[in-house]
C-alpha cells in the first residue's frame, strides 16, 4: 500500500531557469579519471 505522505517526500521542487546557472557551477564534475590521477599523484608522493 502506498503511503501518500512518504511518497510525497520523494518529490522535490524542480529547478527554475533562473537557477540553472548556479546549478551548473555547483555541479560536481569529478570523475573516475580525476580520482585515478589524484591517486597516482598521491602514491608517487608517498613513494618519494
Amino acid at each position, binding site marked *: 500500500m502506498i503511503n501518500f505522505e512518504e511518497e510525497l517526500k520523494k*518529490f522535490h*521542487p524542480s529547478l527554475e531557469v533562473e537557477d540553472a546557472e548556479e546549478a551548473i557551477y555547483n555541479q560536481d564534475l569529478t570523475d573516475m579519471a580525476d580520482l585515478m*590521477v589524484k591517486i597516482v599523484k598521491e602514491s608517487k608522493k608517498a613513494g618519494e
Partner: protein
Amino acid sequence: MICYRCGCTLSEHDFCTNCGADVALYKRIIYISNRFYNDGLERASVRDLTGAITSLRQSLKFDKNNVEARNLLGLVYFETGEVVAALSEWVISKNLRPKKNIADDYISMIQTNQNRLDTINQTIKKYNQALTYCNQDSLDLAVIQLKKVLSLNPKFIRAHQLLALLYINSEEWERAKRELTKCLEIDTNNTATLRYLKEVDEMLLPEEGVKPSKKQKKSEEVVKYQSGNETIIQPVNMKEGRGVTSLLNLGIGLAIGIAIAFFLILPARIQAAKAGIDEQLRKVSEQSDTKTATINELEQQLAELQAQNETLQQDVAAYMGQDGSTLQSVESLMKAAGAYLTDDEDVVTVMDYLEQVEKEKAEEENENSEAFDTLYNTLLALIGPQVAESYDKDGHDAFWAGNYADAIPNLEKAFLYDATNGQALFDLGNSYNRIGEKEKAKEIYRQVIELFPNTEKAEKSKNFLAELEDAEE
C-alpha cells in the same frame, strides 16, 4: 583519446608515447564510460528513459569529458520534461567542446524562442506551486495546478506521477491509471510509475485469490446426491426460482416506472398543456375584445350616419318641389318668370308667384344662388311699379267705397311695392281707424309722420293720432 597528463593523442600502447605515462587504467576507465554510454543509448532507443539516465550518469561518472553521453543525457532529461537539467548538461557539454557540438543546436533551439522559454519557466513554477499545495494539504488546488502544468508540457513525467499520486490518494483509480499510462508511454521503465501502477491495478482488478473462493462458494451452492450409479448435482437456487424473481423484479420496475410517469411526468405534462391552452385562450380573448371594440365603433358610426341621412333626407324633402325634382322656391320663381313672359300685363299673377317665392324662401331658410336672386330682383323691378299702381288703385277704390276690409291688404301691398306712396300708407291708417283698430291705426300714423315729415299727410296724421290718444284718455 588523449593522455590525461600531457594531452597527446594516445596510441594502442598502454603508455603515452609522448610523456611515457601509464595509461592502461585510464584507458580502462574510458572504455567503461563508453560501455555505459552504449547501454544508455540502447535504453533510450527503447524509451527506457530512467535506465538511460542511470547508464549515462554512470558513463559521466567515469568520464566527465564524454560529450556524447552528456548530450544524450540532456536529450533524455528534455524528453522527461526536465528542461533545466537538460540545459545544464548541454551548457557543460558546450564548455567541454565549444566547436562541432550538437548541444549548441539544442541550446539555440530553446533560447532563440523566448515564448518557449517562458512557457518552460511557467511550467516549472506551476509544478513547484502544486508541490507546495500538496505539502499544505490543498490537494484540490494541487490537482488543478498540475493539470495546467501538463497542458503546457505533456511530457513532464514528475507532474504526471504527482497527479497520479493525488488521484491514488483520493481513490480515483481510473484517473490515476490514465496518468500512469501516459507516463509509461514516455518512459517505459520508470520505477515509481510501475510501483504506482501496480497499486492502481490491484485496486481496479479483482484479486487473484478471490476467484477461486467464488468458485468454491458456487460449488457450495449446489446439492449433490446419488441416484443409483449417477451423481446428481443440483443448484440450490433453482432456475425457475430465478425466473420468477426476474419477472417479479420486472413487474416491480414497471410499476415504479408507471408510478413515476403518473405522479411526476404526467402532472408536468398536464400543467404544460393547461398553460398552453390558457395562453391560447388569452390570445383569443384579446382578439375578441379588439373585434368587439371595432364593432361598437362601427355601430356608433352607423348610427351617426343614419341620423345624418335622415336630416339630409328631411332637408332634401323640404327643398323638393311638387314634382319632387326641384326646390319649391325655384319652382315658384320659374312659374313667375313663365307668367311674365306669357303676359307681361298680368302683373297680379306674376306677383302672386313672387310672393309665393318670398314665402318659401323664408320657410327654407337657405341661401339661394346668385342667379336665383338676380332673376327674382329683375322680375320684381320689372313688375314692381305696375303692381304697386294696381294695388294702389284697387285699394283706394275699396277705400272710397267704404270697403275698408278689402282696402287694407291692397293698400299695404301698394306701399310695400312703392315705398314712396305716402298716400297709400296714410289711407291704410285711415282704414284701420275706420274699422276701429285704433292701435294699428296709431302705428300707421306714426309711420307716416316719420317717413313723410313736413307734408300735409303728416300733419293730418298728427291730428288723427292726437284725436285717438285723447279718445283713449
